[in-house]
């Protein structure tokens, strides 16, 4: 009888001790942010364009993590982006919705500097502060920082901003995927 009691007491003690350790660890190694949101945010292209219906990439990542929104709402991420999200979240790949915004070739905004009136509206719209300028001064876009979100186009009162597709340069050109040409076989029976 006493042996059983001792065993129970011992088990209870161990349970208490382990519980204390776990409790301590959960306080000590507490992760502030949701790591899933971070991971999703890392996959998103950070265009900050709002085409997903959220005010930036991080809110969209939060919405995906909460299960509020789908993974196929990010046109700049392309189909590759959806595949990566599907892999990360362990869900099925889902194509872009019919009629919804579709992926476009990468582009950067270019200000027609002759027509710019220096209204600063595009400066306020740019989510990554990639436009340089001041009131009544000509504005220009830092092409290397432009994410191609197109958010500056709508506010421009003189329509002097256009999107210019990115052309490959010697530094960005890459070898294409090797293709094996298929030659038609001539029919020699005749």
């Amino acid at each position, binding site marked *: 009888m006493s042996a059983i009691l001792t065993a129970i007491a011992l088990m209870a003690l161990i349970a208490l001790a382990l519980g204390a350790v776990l409790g301590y660890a959960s306080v000590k190694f507490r992760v502030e942010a949701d790591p899933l949101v971070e991971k999703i*945010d890392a996959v*998103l*292209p*950070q*265009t*900050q364009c709002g085409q997903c219906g959220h005010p*930036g*990439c991080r809110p969209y990542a939060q919405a995906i993590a909460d299960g509020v929104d789908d993974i196929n709402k990010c046109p700049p991420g392309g189909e590759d982006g959806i595949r990566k999200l599907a892999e990360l979240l362990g869900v099925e790949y889902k194509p872009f919705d019919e009629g919804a915004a579709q992926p476009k070739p990468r582009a950067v905004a270019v200000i027609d500097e002759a027509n710019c009136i220096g209204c600063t509206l595009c400066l306020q719209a740019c*989510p*990554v*502060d*990639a436009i340089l300028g001041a009131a009544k001064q000509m504005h220009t876009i830092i092409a290397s*920082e432009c*994410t191609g979100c197109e958010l500056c186009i709508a506010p421009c009162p003189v329509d002097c901003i256009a999107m210019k597709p990115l052309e*490959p*340069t*010697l530094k*960005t*050109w*890459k*070898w*294409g*995927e*090797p293709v*094996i*040409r298929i*030659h038609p076989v001539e029919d020699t029976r005749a």
Partner: protein
Amino acid sequence: MRALYDFNGGVHPPEHKAISTGTPIRQAPVPPRLYVPMSQSLGNAALPCVAVGDTVLKGQKIAEPDGRLSAAVHAPTSGRVVAIAPHAYPHPSGLSELAVVIEPDGRDAWTERRPVADWRVRPAGELLARLAEMGVVGLGGAVFPTHLKAAASALDTLVINGAECEPFISCDDMLMRERAGGIVDGIRVLAHLTQPREVLIGVEDNKPEAIAALRQACAGSGFTVVAVPTKYPSGGAKQLIRILTGKAVPHGTRSTEMGVQCFNVATAYSVGRAIVHGEPVISRIVTLTGDVERPHNVEALLGTPVRFLIEYAGRRAGVDAVLMGGPMMGFALPDEDAGITKASNCLIAKSPAVLPPRPAAMPCIRCGECASACPVELQPMDLYWFAKAKNFGKAQEWHLFDCIECGACSYVCPSQIPLVDYYRYAKGEIWAAEHDKKAADRARARHEFRQFRLERDKSEKTQRLAERAAIKEKELAASLGQPAAPAPRAAEPAVADDDAKKAAIQAAMERAAARKAEKQTGEAAPAGPAPAAALDDAKKAAIQAAMERAAARKAEKPAARDAAQQKDDKER
């Protein structure tokens, strides 16, 4: 006889070198127009420092380096700059690159040359600066700026690479045969800069004339000419270092860290020209070979169009493309109008007779031939597998980036799979993905900073407004002659309220007193002016109370306005 080492794999393709070594190096004629590309080094394209219409002299600097890995460009001959515009560039992409177009005047007049005759006593920094000024880059193909490589000092071994292992190419061979003295001059400068314990010149043993010429030129210099067994790709820097010193340069390290530095013989020659003769790099030896009438080596000015050189060598009818570089690592030029660069060592007129087209690729049978041929001991069949499946992460894990793209695996593949094409494709995709990732990280940081900045600006504005309001309150309180209360916004309406209340109470008390008086007088004299007097008193009290209320409201107004403004700001 030195002990030599061996590297894994390697292949022995037919050499085809003898076809272009029969005649000495000729000076290529000057074309009607030189298209000098600005991209002549591993780094950014150089920035032109001449204008259209300028007259330039031979050896005059026409473009300044842009960044650390960039190199200066000089006019190959005297003439007039007729255009500075994008022009065809020798690159597999076929993209155009900025070129300075020079119309030679035929005088070939040199600019002032400033040789450093006493280089032996000059500090290293000065000589390195001179090398950078003269646009000296690695002529073996990598076009890495030489002054950066030569900045290493106290080396164990200085390796001079004269292996030239790739088929068809014989420009280094001819240079060593004919200008061994010039090469040794350059090696002396390099040895002075890097202070090595020994200098080894590695030459493949299929070039006996070059070895003999170098040995003769090296007599008494302490430099050792080593004949290395002919095997492709022994001319790779890391492979030659391995053969000569036995040191294997590990992944992610440079040979300098192991006390070895390697320069091509043509680079050494141009170092000699730059320091001893004060001549910048304006020409190079180019092998013209393949299906041409007169295969030979020429010294061609940089910017000479490829088409012009192939015509000079006698283009034959069946030529369908021109390769730049050798058949193993070279590429077909998309546009023959491109001007040659410092990296253009060989031009092969390709025809089915000389280089038969590769048969169609068959499936991989995993025979492992490629792995036994790989000089860097990779598993090419697995890399192929991963690249084909677009599993780039895995390819990287299997050391894709150690691949030197020598083509030995493709050469031995019994299924004729263009393996190197897959590795180039995978490398390009990985680089692009890394570039995108960096751009995304930067965009995220910029976006987050923007959010932070907006927040900060808003809170700073609120604070500023609050401070301004407090100052106004104080001023107002001072002008009203009231003591400045520490919290005037809350206190003042209370004070006004109190006043109004007091007035109301006083009025009520007066009314009560009046009524009392009325009763008393009513008992004494029921009619008369008494009620009227009482009424007057009540009216007066009411007027006074109203006036006091108005004053209170006036005092309250500024405070209320401030409060409202603050609320607005917050909402904004």
